């Protein structure tokens, strides 16, 4: 149970941090593609799969005209396939991530489950803005629970020998849980953490790769808010509890912290 006096309304923070996602989706035509994001590599659309009632996300990789056509086709196809395989592996083995619906490797498009909810990044920014700054008293608060969930999901990911490659708070989403689960106990969170965007991920058992995953997330946390370091400690604690080989990875993380993500190189 968390103390209602000095906390915040979880629901309100979520609405505030991503208001457009809580608009009336019935009025828009869900099966048309709505461009959500145009990144360096991929365009991301919201659409529907099979039925108008099943929202989905489509990740498309437009061709890059600067590179040779043969190379471009090869890379686009390869990356599309690799990401689809990772998504499938994670979801199948029990790491919460969007379900894989359809792959069009000719077009380089992946259709996947739509995750409704804000990113952890947006959520944290809102939470910290609202004055949830006393991060030393995280115990039993939902923010503390959230950090545990994040640590657990990363441990699960690493347990199945997958590294994410771009583990930032933007790539962790909060998905609203089914009502029946939420009602079982008040102390349970109403939101579940879901990992997204496996575009830079790979199957890897390397401690170095896993440590870099944690390091990238740590940097993302520290740049979000100076007081977020206590939050990150909770993530590491939870990772330690849930990983099958935390010691070697955390030792490696120390090394990565000292030298930075980049190795020192000869000139």
């Amino acid at each position: 149970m968390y103390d209602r006096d000095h906390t915040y309304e979880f629901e309100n923070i979520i609405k505030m941090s991503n208001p457009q996602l809580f608009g009336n989706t019935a009025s828009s035509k869900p099966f048309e593609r709505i461009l959500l994001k145009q990144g360096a590599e991929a365009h991301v659309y919201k659409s529907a799969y099979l039925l108008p009632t099943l929202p989905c996300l489509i990740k498309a990789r437009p061709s890059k005209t600067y590179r040779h056509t043969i190379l471009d086709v090869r890379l686009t196809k390869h990356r599309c396939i690799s990401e689809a395989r990772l998504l499938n592996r994670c979801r199948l083995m029990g790491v919460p991530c969007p379900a894989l619906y359809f792959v069009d490797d000719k077009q380089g498009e992946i259709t996947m489950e739509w995750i409704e909810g804000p990113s952890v990044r947006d959520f944290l920014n809102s939470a910290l803005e609202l004055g949830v700054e006393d991060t030393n008293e995280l115990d039993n608060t939902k923010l503390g629970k959230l950090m545990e969930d994040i640590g657990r999901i990363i441990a699960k990911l690493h347990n199945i020998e997958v590294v994410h490659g771009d583990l930032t708070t933007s790539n962790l989403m909060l998905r609203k849980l089914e009502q029946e689960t939420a009602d079982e106990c008040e102390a349970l969170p109403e939101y579940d953490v879901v990992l997204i965007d496996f575009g830079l991920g790979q199957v890897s058992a390397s401690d170095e790769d896993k440590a870099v995953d944690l390091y990238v997330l740590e940097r993302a946390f520290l740049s979000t808010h100076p007081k977020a370091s206590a939050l990150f400690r909770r993530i590491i604690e939870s990772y330690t509890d849930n990983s099958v080989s935390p010691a070697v990875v955390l030792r490696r993380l120390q090394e990565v912290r000292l030298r930075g993500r980049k190795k020192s190189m000869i000139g």
Partner: protein
Amino acid sequence: MTIAIGLEGSANKLGVGIIRHTPSKPAEILSNIRHTFISPPGEGFLPKDTAIHHRSWVVKLVKQALKESGVKVEDVDCICYTKGPGMGAPLQSVAVAARTLALLWDKPLVGVNHCVGHIEMGREITGADNPVVLYVSGGNTQVIAYAEQRYRIFGEALDIAIGNCLDRFARTLNISNDPAPGYNIEQMAKKGKHLIDIPYTVKGMDCSFSGILGFIDMYAGEMLSGVEKRDAETGELITPEDLCFSLQETAFAMLVEITERAMAHVGSTQVLIVGGVGCNERLQEMMGIMARERGGSVYATDERFCIDNGIMIAHAGLLAYSTGFTTPIDESTCTQRFRTDEPLIKWRN
């Protein structure tokens, strides 16, 4: 008005440049000369031989630069030299020369980071205000962006540099080192047309070239020993020109990709290419297409500034000197490892 002499010798080029800064005016290049140590085909330049080359040419070059510029020794404000990164022995020979000049003429010394020299000269020449910088040379492959008084490295080659990859490939194919192996590869690549499948290794904003080198060395080795290689579609014979073409198309696509990712990351539309490999017109062309599609443009310089030179050391050194920075004689060392994000860039906001 301030004047600096710059001495560069971190690799096989010895360069001496003289620059003049006048407040609110573009920098004036009074002299920019270079002498290159060229090794025979199939061989790289060894540190010892390169150092001997630099030692035997540095006096001649400094004299010639002073003469060309018409600058008198008493008008020179500081002596700038490359502190690193680079090859140890050549760096040391040039540092000794710089120290000697400083003591002889009683001028302050300014040690300069070679990479910062490239970036500052590139900005000065092209007018690019706050670009993402791709620094590509024999020893370095870095994607850099400025933030809070540092040139921060967003991505880099995790093993060997792109220039090193090209140089070693040229050696495998016995391509001449005159004027530069990369230049000769570029000319041969223009005649290539078949793209062979080469390992493409990009991890986020980092990349790797050792896999390419290993692959193409093996492939070329088989070709040279008489094994016929044919294009999968046309059945035509694969030529050394095709190898050069494929190497460039693949390696440069990797460079453009990591640069684009960094541009998206920092929200910039300008990109500046510096370093010896930056002369390559195909790389500039590919980068230009990418930048245009992002609504921006590419900035590049010609061989006078892309290839290692003394003027960039003079320029970056003089910028540092203008903020009060000097290198005392007893600290005027050089270092093979000197990261681009180490120096404090006090002259920028």
